[in-house]
């Protein structure tokens, strides 16, 4: 038995005590006192879109909710680096959309090709047009392959997987790592921020090192050619590398010539304006921007990201379109307008849902509360996290600097440090199971 607002309202509408409340929840001018006929289309069934669809239906069963998604199976990016490192299976990161269907959500496997913000409709590849009262866009990211000259989608799908969308490319990269000989070099290039999963590349370097070290290939090198001059959880990663993979991982900052701008597949060499990075395996992570549908709808800024009202997640460009997840820059929040993580997409979706319901019911916008938790696993039993809390302060959304932050780098003694890292490596796995269920079940 759930104990949520819907149950409250159900209880309310079946008793006489609450007549004034019902009236209050449906002021004149709102849609007929019931949300029953409001049509909401959600484009993109990742963590953001799935959460939005589920919570819309869960909080108001009368809504007409349609989720448009390309793939019948979702694969989580979080914990996919662990698959490359041999610490997890891709199957465990996958789920379908039956859970959402069972909730009464109309799940359509199709490609959303165009949005008409004025006519309030979404066109699908199959030819169908879906009309909406509110649209939730959660298209994730697309890659700007041109950002690294010589790299291409074709290379990504054949010889040089970026593996920065989890799925077949994850397994392809894993296979390449498995094929490395002792003494070989793995080159990993990091695009300029913002990119999805800020600690992702560094966790990947750790996982590749874990695999190589535990397979008698400890003389291999992992070279991270970075477009940026610092990175997420830097102190935690550097500590882990020193403890678990001494001498194996080298990081080249953008200012030190790490910003890769071209790639030659024949010689397996990635180059910045100053350096050539030649590897036995070269893993290019190309620059990103918001998913194409957002770009084509005119929702993106000059850098390619969707700007939103920080308190509601409604697009600053078109009303009644809410944008959540990796495709957004969330105002001026650090870092790069809030981290692009599954947890952030989940929390943004819930805020968007709260505001859509408020619009439908003519009630005030709820006070926004955003939370982010992001775990990385650098080695078996060695996990750590960063937490962000974003709250309303003097009418503005701010990062609460008294809360959040990264796991402690140094602790009183080794036993304490080991306990902390062990706990968070386990929490990472539990977190994924729960957030997958929170979005898809």
């Amino acid at each position: 038995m759930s104990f949520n607002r819907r149950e409250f309202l159900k209880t309310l509408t079946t008793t006489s005590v609450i007549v004034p409340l019902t009236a209050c929840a449906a002021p004149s001018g709102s849609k007929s006192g019931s949300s029953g006929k409001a049509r909401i289309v959600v484009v993109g069934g990742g963590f953001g879109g799935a959460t939005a669809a589920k919570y819309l239906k869960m909080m108001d069963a009368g809504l007409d909710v349609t989720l448009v998604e390309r793939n019948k199976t979702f694969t989580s990016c979080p914990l996919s680096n662990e698959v490359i490192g041999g610490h997890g299976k891709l199957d465990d990161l996958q789920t379908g959309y039956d859970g959402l269907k069972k909730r009464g959500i109309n799940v359509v496997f199709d490609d959303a090709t165009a949005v008409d913000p004025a006519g309030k409709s979404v066109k699908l590849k199959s030819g169908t047009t879906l009309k909406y009262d509110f649209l939730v866009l959660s298209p994730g990211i697309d890659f700007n392959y041109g950002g690294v000259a010589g790299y291409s989608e074709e290379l990504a799908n054949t010889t040089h997987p970026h593996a920065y969308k989890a799925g077949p490319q994850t397994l392809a990269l894993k296979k390449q790592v498995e094929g490395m000989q002792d003494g070989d070099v793995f080159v990993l290039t990091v695009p300029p921020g913002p990119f999805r999963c800020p600690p992702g590349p560094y966790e990947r370097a750790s996982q590749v090192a874990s695999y190589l070290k535990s397979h008698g290939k400890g003389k291999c090198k992992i070279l991270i050619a970075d477009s940026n001059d610092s990175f997420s959880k830097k102190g935690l990663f550097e500590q882990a590398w020193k403890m678990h993979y001494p001498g194996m991982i080298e990081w080249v900052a953008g200012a030190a010539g790490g910003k890769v701008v071209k790639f030659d597949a024949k010689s397996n060499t990635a180059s910045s304006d100053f350096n050539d990075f030649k590897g036995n395996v070269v893993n290019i992570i190309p620059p990103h921007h918001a998913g194409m549908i957002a770009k084509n709808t005119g929702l993106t800024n000059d850098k390619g990201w969707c700007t939103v009202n920080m308190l509601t997640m409604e697009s600053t460009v078109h009303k009644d379109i809410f944008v959540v997840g990796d495709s957004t820059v969330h105002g001026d929040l650090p870092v790069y307008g809030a981290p692009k993580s599954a947890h952030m997409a989940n929390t943004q979706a819930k805020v968007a849902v709260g505001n859509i319901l408020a619009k439908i019911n003519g009630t005030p916008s709820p006070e926004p509360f955003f939370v982010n938790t992001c775990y990385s696993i650098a080695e078996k039993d060695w996990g750590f996290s960063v937490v962000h809390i974003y709250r309303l302060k003097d009418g503005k959304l701010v990062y609460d600097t008294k809360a959040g932050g990264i796991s402690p780098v140094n602790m009183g003694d080794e036993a304490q440090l080991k306990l902390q890292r062990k706990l968070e490596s386990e929490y990472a796995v539990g977190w994924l199971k729960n957030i997958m269920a929170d979005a898809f079940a």
Partner: protein
Amino acid sequence: MRSSLMIAMAALGLAALPALAGPTEDLARTCNACHGVNGVSVGPSMPSIGGLPEAYLKNVLLQWKSDERYSATMGRHFKGYTEAELTALATYYAKLPYVPVVQPADAKLVAQGKNATDRCETCHGATGGTPDDAETPKINGQWAKYLEMELMKYRNDAVKMPHKKMRGNAKKLADEDVAVAAQFYAAQPK
């Protein structure tokens, strides 16, 4: 079902509109990502929190905020909440039904666990489902992985865990009994 409806009615009668507007429910919705809808977790390392005693939840939440109790992650979250919000969350989750989770159990390990948990009975009850006071959590049907990790915290002197009696008893468990004790309670439906 009946009881939660009655609670709903009672809460409604007393608190009227502001409670319905739901700031606590809005906050709680963010907890779902890690602890499950209605506080029922599906991740073995994360505890179910729905239906735990209010006094216990309030203690733990406030102790994490003030760093009186060690946590790997939660303390960093709760510094971003006010004491009033944490108290309201404790009340909110305490009113939800406690749902023991069904999880894989090895009969032999569960039997070993039963033998290892005599010292736990006084406070948590024979199956972990009947704690002797309001500040003691139910542990029947809690995730085994989580229980095992909590025991690891209590057994590690380097971290701050405020409950002396619990710490003393956790440390008296033999190393090999930690996991089986967790298995035993996890397997108890009531």
